[in-house]
């Protein structure tokens, strides 16, 4: 202000003082301006740089614009051999029409990146153990676990496998990467996904390696093991009690492959060593994170003999963590040779669960203990050699460089043996200096899962499907199949080690060569079935086969409820329609409750209940129809009562001081029924003798107490309000990007497996008539942008059990088109 004055009063001879003031004023204001500009361009603590974020032309405001408002008639995509047409239907599902495979997958990469770039980039950073680069030291332990498990190592081997054995597939995977990268290079500042703007980093180039890494990441999400816990239990309980509480084939197992299947092959011999010495260490080790409870899936196919129209019908609903942006992205991929539609995984080529003009296929996780642990005896502290039989084998070292935002790079040395990486050692997880365990896992073998999906997209019949599956190693899946020609089939595919009975259930001694896997089950001897007598095939993560299958199969987490409900319904149904199959995917029947509640009721005996609230709860439970629908109150009461009871029964196991697993619901209920007064229910730490009745009663009282608190604080205890299904953004801290309290039924162990954080991540039903009639839905939206109207628009449809039309489209079909784009060189 005074500056202006001085200039105006120029009739006085300017003194040196005024000149200095002018300089001073200018530089003073310039300094403020620069300081301001810098302050709003750099992150201050957890606040991202404000100006780039708030700038309405380039910042987050621009992400408010939905994809249809940004539609272009033509976009440049280099390296195409012919123009590619992309037709978006009203749900923003792209239908890509290309002249050949290379163009198709290049366009798939480009289009997927347009809508899901941040998610693809973030998921592969997670898979590579590189989250610390973005969020800082809070993610360091997570990154260390990821790297020590060797996911990146597995992806490197996968890439090497493609380079050496399958250059044709590699060319396509690279075309996809090129498509993604062309999009990244074309992207302007405004359309940068909002997560980059908030977290203040930039997308990285995509590569063939990253596509392979993504598939390894899926393995990690789906595969767990309980070898550590079982080793502890064996030591604490003894083999006999362990076998009693954790039977490998409980009564009434209802396996994936129908009971009575004849195994018409000569199995390879597996030799069990005459003496087996397990390591006897106290295993006080932090167990690795396991796949979330409730991660599972359903799939089935009914043959024409059971359907109204005489066509096979196939259904698939993989259950996974419910996230936004959704794990799945829908597409149709068409060339003159084939036309496939369904759910893709952003980052991977082709359709993963879907159909084409001739066949349909789907996947569920085939849980089989695919990870084993070997105790490593190092020669000395340098860990350069380890004992193997009578010799010392040389180990290798892999230095993991973990960049940490705001800190120095963290160097983690991981020792690799011929079994695999030494995950637990003196620097990680193990509380004892001398404890070292190496992980043997099929993920560390060169493999070509990508080819399986690309071939399935083109498969015409059962033989093509079988051929495609031969390339598939991990994570093992139950592949359901149906064809227009009337076949229905199921095959449990993965690379399964040959194991003697009990092998790999507990930690093994790595210095004893007899503990090695003795080879692998040949693909053609993997359990499978084609057109079984019962007229359907199905899987729900249960036991793969009955006990007659000639190879040893074990897992801790086999399902006992969804499978029996599913097979029960499919057996009794006839004249099946697509609508019936949709209803079955959305079925809320709570089988666990039908078996547990009568026992709980009998043991608690209502004569002893006097509290009016408790009486009311009991009445609600008595009049319940066993459906876990969103408006029902009884499922909440039962859920809490059962879980409290289960915890009461096994609570003394918490005192073991070592990680263990407790017997599952199925076995616990069997024990409640068969020996309610048995010693198994007595808590040794108390003077009195407890029976099942005591645990059930205290479970009931705990439930009443919890419910009173819930009613005081929350009021409504209907099932949907209690379980609070949440579809969470991949960065949990971005809670306003999540969708909370979705009103929907179902739960863990229910066909509609929607619990609080897990559930049907994709539902598909396909009728294989002359024309394919297909329906699909997933809890999310095609856009990964939280500002887009296509971000979460599928969620209400999904929550209501409704579907979108997924019929194949032709390029010239006009109805229901949102916009069209031509990709041109």
């Amino acid at each position, binding site marked *: *202000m005074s500056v202006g004055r001085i200039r105006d009063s120029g009739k006085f001879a300017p003194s040196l003082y005024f000149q200095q003031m002018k300089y001073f004023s*200018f530089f003073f*204001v310039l300094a403020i301006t620069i300081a301001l*500009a810098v302050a709003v361009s750099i992150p201050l603590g957890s606040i991202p740089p404000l100006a780039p974020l708030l700038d*309405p032309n380039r910042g987050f405001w621009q992400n408010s614009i939905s994809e249809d408002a940004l539609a272009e008639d033509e976009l440049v995509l280099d390296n195409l051999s012919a123009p590619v047409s992309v037709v978006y239907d009203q749900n923003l599902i792209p239908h890509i029409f290309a002249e050949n495979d290379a163009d198709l997958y290049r366009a798939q990469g480009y289009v997927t990146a347009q809508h899901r770039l941040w998610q693809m980039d973030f998921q592969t950073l997670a898979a590579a153990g590189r989250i610390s680069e973005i969020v800082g030291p809070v993610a360091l332990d997570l990154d260390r676990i990821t790297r020590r498990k060797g996911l990146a190592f597995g992806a490197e081997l996968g890439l090497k496998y493609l380079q050496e054995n399958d250059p044709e597939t590699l060319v396509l995977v690279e075309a996809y990467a090129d498509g993604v990268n062309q999009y990244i290079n074309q992207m302007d500042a*405004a359309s940068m996904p909002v997560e980059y703007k908030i977290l203040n980093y930039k997308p990285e180039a995509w590569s063939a390696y990253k596509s392979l890494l993504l598939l390894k990441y899926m393995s990690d999400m789906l595969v767990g093991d309980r070898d550590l816990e079982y080793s502890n239990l064996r030591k604490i309980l003894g083999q006999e009690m362990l076998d009693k509480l954790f039977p490998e084939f409980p009564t009434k197992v209802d396996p994936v492959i129908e009971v009575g299947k004849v195994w018409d092959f000569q199995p390879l011999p597996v030799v069990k060593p005459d003496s087996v010495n397990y390591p006897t260490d106290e295993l006080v080790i932090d167990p690795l994170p396991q796949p979330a409870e409730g991660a599972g899936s359903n799939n089935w196919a009914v043959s024409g003999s059971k359907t109204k129209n005489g066509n096979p019908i196939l259904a698939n609903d993989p259950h996974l963590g419910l996230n936004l942006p959704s794990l799945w992205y829908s597409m149709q991929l068409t060339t003159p040779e084939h036309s496939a539609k369904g759910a893709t995984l952003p980052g991977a080529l082709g359709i993963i669960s879907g159909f084409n003009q001739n066949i349909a296929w789907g996947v569920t996780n085939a849980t089989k203990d695919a990870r084993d642990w070997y105790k490593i005896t190092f020669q000395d502290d340098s860990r350069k050699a380890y004992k193997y039989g009578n010799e010392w084998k040389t180990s290798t070292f892999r230095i993991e460089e973990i960049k940490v935002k705001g800190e120095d790079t963290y160097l983690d040395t991981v020792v690799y043996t011929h079994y695999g990486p030494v995950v637990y050692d003196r620097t990680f997880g193990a509380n004892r200096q001398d404890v070292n365990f190496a992980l043997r896992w099929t993920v560390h073998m060169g493999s070509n899962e990508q080819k399986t999906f690309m071939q399935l997209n083109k498969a015409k019949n059962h033989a093509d499907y079988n051929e495609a599956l031969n390339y598939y190693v991990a994570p093992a899946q139950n592949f359901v199949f149906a064809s227009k020609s009337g076949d229905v089939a199921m095959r449990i595919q993965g690379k399964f080690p040959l194991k003697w009975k009990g092998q790999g259930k507990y930690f093994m001694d790595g210095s004893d060569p007899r503990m090695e896997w003795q080879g692998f089950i040949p693909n053609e001897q993997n359990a499978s079935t084609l057109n079984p007598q019962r007229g359907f095939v199905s899987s729900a993560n249960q036991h793969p086969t009955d006990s007659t299958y000639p190879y040893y199969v074990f897992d801790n987490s086999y399902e006992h409820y969804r499978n029996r409900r599913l097979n029960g319904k499919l057996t009794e149904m006839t004249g099946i329609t697509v609508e019936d199959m949709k209803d079955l995917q959305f079925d809320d029947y709570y089988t666990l409750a039908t078996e547990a509640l009568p026992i709980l009721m009998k043991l608690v005996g209502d004569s002893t209940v006097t509290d009016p609230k408790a009486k009311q709860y009991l009445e609600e439970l008595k009049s319940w129809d066993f459906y876990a629908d969103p408006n029902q109150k009884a499922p909440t009461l039962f859920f809490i009562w059962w879980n409290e009871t289960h915890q009461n029964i096994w609570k003394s196991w918490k005192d073991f001081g070592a990680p263990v697993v407790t017997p599952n619901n199925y076995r616990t209920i069997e024990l409640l029924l068969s020996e309610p007064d048995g010693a198994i229910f007595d808590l040794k730490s108390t003077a009195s003798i407890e029976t099942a009745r005591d645990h059930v009663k205290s479970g009931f009282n705990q439930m009443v107490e919890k419910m009173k608190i819930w009613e005081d604080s929350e009021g409504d205890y209907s099932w949907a309000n209690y379980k609070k299904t949440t579809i969470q953004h991949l960065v949990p801290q971005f809670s306003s990007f999540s969708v909370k309290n979705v009103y929907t039924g179902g739960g863990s162990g229910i066909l509609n497996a929607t619990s609080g954080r897990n559930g049907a991540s994709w539902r598909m039903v396909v009728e294989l008539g002359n024309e394919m009639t297909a329906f699909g839905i997933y809890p999310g939206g095609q856009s990964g942008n939280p500002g887009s109207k296509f971000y979460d628009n599928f969620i209400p449809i999904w929550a209501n059990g409704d579907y979108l039309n997924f019929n194949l489209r032709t390029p010239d079909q006009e109805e229901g088109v949102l916009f069209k784009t031509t990709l041109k060189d």
Partner: protein
Amino acid sequence: MRFIFLVIMTVILVVFLNPVLPFWVIMILIGALAGLIGLKGAESFLAGGLGMGLAWLGQSLYISVSTGSPLPNRMGELMGLGSGMTLAGITAVLGFLLGGFSAMTGSLLRNLLMRKPDNLYRG
């Protein structure tokens, strides 16, 4: 007149060039513009500030209203700043400060460079 001219020119600058240029380049351009127009420092501050502040406010409100997107509210919640309208306000204030200081710097620079002519003809 020159005041209104600077306001309008700043708005035009932001609307047409900001989409392709980051905010700090816009700041330099506003400074140059203010230097050319040659208002007093305080007037430049107010004019440049109003120009960029109003442009940013108008743009954020236009995007909000025309898209109906939930994103402004989601961002407001995420940043602990309440609703999207609060964010539009903050965007406007930020634009005002950036535009204002840039314009003021520009006019003070002109002041420095114009020193000699002042001496010669006014004295």
